[in-house]
């Protein structure tokens, strides 16, 4: 019973290619996120969707485009991949509450751009 799942686990590709990462959660949460973790393990939010609506869009190149077909899914498409895009990408989900949210993370997708 995986709560937050991502595919693929590993992605190795050439510079300039386009790739997608998929995320699904079965926790019934209404909010989903994409994070990027760099080589120094710094975790930074990229996007957040609440009920399929984009609510957080950090300073991310427009080559990155999230899509949420429904509350349980949030995909990330990346165009024209660059060397600097190499990182681990984490999907997460939570309930959007009035005071605080506790986020549940997927296992991550390690993207390597050659």
């Amino acid at each position, binding site marked *: 019973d995986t709560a937050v799942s991502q595919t693929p686990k590993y992605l190795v590709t050439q510079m300039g290619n386009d790739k997608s990462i998929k995320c699904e959660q079965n926790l019934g949460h209404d909010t989903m996120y994409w994070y990027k973790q760099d080589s120094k393990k710094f*975790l930074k939010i990229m996007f*957040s969707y609440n009920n399929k609506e984009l609510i957080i869009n950090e300073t991310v190149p427009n080559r990155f485009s999230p899509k949420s077909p429904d509350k349980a899914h949030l995909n990330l498409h990346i165009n024209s991949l660059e060397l600097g895009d190499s990182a681990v990408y984490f999907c997460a989900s939570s309930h959007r509450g009035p005071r605080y949210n506790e986020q549940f993370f997927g296992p991550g997708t390690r993207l390597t751009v050659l």
Partner: protein
Amino acid sequence: TQLLEQSPQFLSIQEGENLTVYCNSSSVFSSLQWYRQEPGEGPVLLVTVVTGGEVKKLKRLTFQFGDARKDSSLHITAAQPGDTGLYLCAGDETGTASKLTFGTGTRLQVTL
């Protein structure tokens, strides 16, 4: 952008020792969370603290939220090899929509 600085950055200790990890910011957070991340996996929530001065215990782990809600600490008593991992604090920005700012991380290694 609010910044959460963690110290120390790296910590290597022997089993049975005690340790404290600090998470500091100049900004106020409505709540603060601690996560542990193991290699090849995503972060897993350990605890959430929401009230200034709050102390929470999770077995050998003690978490404290600063009175001003700008800082937090994690104390581990009698560390075990199973405590090895990357510890991340994360602050929930007051008045924003479900946005967590993560700390710089503390990598802990506990050896026999």
